């Protein structure tokens, strides 16, 4: 399979209640690298193995949450095509000029039915992962904290997740990978969608308030490194929500925890690879506990109610 439309999640712009405290947390504890600060004070970060200049942007604000979630697309032609398709579909789009975000080209920004702002862009400066492209070493020696490989996906909460799914499927060519049904057996409580070969690139849960963030997730290499991440969280008294454990959905091993502004993050490893000939997996309401937390086999109250 070729991945040639939307490539992957490219940036999460997160709000911080206390920017200095957050930058310290994201660099020293989570172990991202700071790659720049812009005139408006936003701080740019990347995970060590990411090539592009940034994948997490922190903005000082008076409330927590997600400003927008961006996806990188193959090239400028793809960006133009997708923008055209969005408009045809009835979605109004806005072009944010190149350079508004550091080292980032023009972004096509639009609102999805759950109220979240999504961005597509084709250009972001490649700063490399520090290993070079010729005969590289296996990993970068100068890592701090948890040090995930990359920002991987987000789980968002809002009302019209059916509208979201149709938009992502029909316009952006995402595919449904897994879903959880409500008690009625027909309504989706949640869906997991992929634009690539991953088990999910974005997921969404039905919720009474729009534009909410459940978590932004970072990928680790092994289950061992998930345990090590939990150790680092305890050493730094990080607020942990759940884990280490495993999700039934996607089969990833996971920890949910909170940044200093109360935004939930995840560090995970594993899960399966998805191919376009796979049928979607359905979970029923009576098994939702095992679907979300495979070992506890029940939801914690925070899963459905604690969002930013």
């Amino acid at each position, binding site marked *: 399979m070729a991945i040639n439309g939307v490539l992957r999640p490219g940036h999460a712009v997160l709000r911080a*209640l*206390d920017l200095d405290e957050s930058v310290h947390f994201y660099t020293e504890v989570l172990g991202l690298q700071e790659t720049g600060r812009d005139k408006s004070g936003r701080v740019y970060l990347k995970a060590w193995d990411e090539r592009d200049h940034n994948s997490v942007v922190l903005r000082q604000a*008076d*409330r*927590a*949450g997600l400003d927008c979630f961006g996806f990188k697309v193959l090239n400028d032609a793809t960006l133009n095509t997708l923008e055209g398709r969005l408009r045809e579909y009835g979605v109004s789009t806005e072009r944010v000029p190149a350079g508004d975000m550091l080292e980032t080209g023009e972004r096509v920004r639009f609102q999805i039915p759950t109220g979240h702002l999504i961005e597509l862009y084709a250009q972001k400066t490649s700063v490399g992962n520090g290993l070079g492209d010729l005969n590289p070493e296996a990993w970068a020696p100068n890592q701090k904290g948890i040090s995930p490989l990359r920002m991987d996906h987000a789980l968002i*909460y809002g009302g019209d997740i059916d509208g979201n799914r149709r938009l992502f499927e029909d316009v952006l060519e995402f595919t449904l990978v897994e879903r959880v049904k*409500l008690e009625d057996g027909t309504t989706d*409580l949640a869906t997991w969608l992929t634009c690539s070969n991953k088990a999910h690139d974005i997921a969404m*849960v*039905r*919720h*009474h308030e729009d534009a909410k963030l459940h978590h932004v997730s970072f990928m680790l290499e092994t289950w061992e490194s998930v345990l090590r991440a939990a150790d680092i969280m305890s050493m730094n008294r990080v*607020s942990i*929500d759940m884990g280490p454990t495993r999700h039934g959905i996607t089969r990833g091993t996971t920890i949910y925890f*909170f*940044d*200093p*502004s*109360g*935004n*939930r993050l995840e560090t995970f490893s594993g899960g399966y690879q998805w191919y376009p000939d796979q049928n979607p997996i359905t979970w029923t309401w009576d098994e939702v506990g095992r679907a979300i937390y495979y070992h506890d086999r029940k939801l914690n*109250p*925070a899963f*459905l*109610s*604690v*969002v*930013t």
Partner: protein
Amino acid sequence: MPRHRVFIEDTQESFACDEAQSVLLGMEALGRKGIPVGCRNGGCGVCKVEVTSGQYVTRVMSRAHVSAEEEASGRALACRIRPTTDLRLRVLGSMRATVCGDTRASATDAP
């Protein structure tokens, strides 16, 4: 570190809370099943309370959940306040559901 009594009016329970510790962490230490701990970092709003008497210090908390006016009138996120005297408080928001058995603001009213 000095400790202060925190009295929860809704349940008539009280607990000792270290000055260095947030009121929410003190409540967590009560070990009461069902205390709906959220982010513990002032962002999600589930731990909203109204302090009816006593002094405390605050840390920055999400304005999506506590406005400046509310903050001035004693409303706060329990995870962002530390007591400097004994406190009396009432539980607000989605935390009521599990602390007080109030179903009007259920913690799982989402889907």
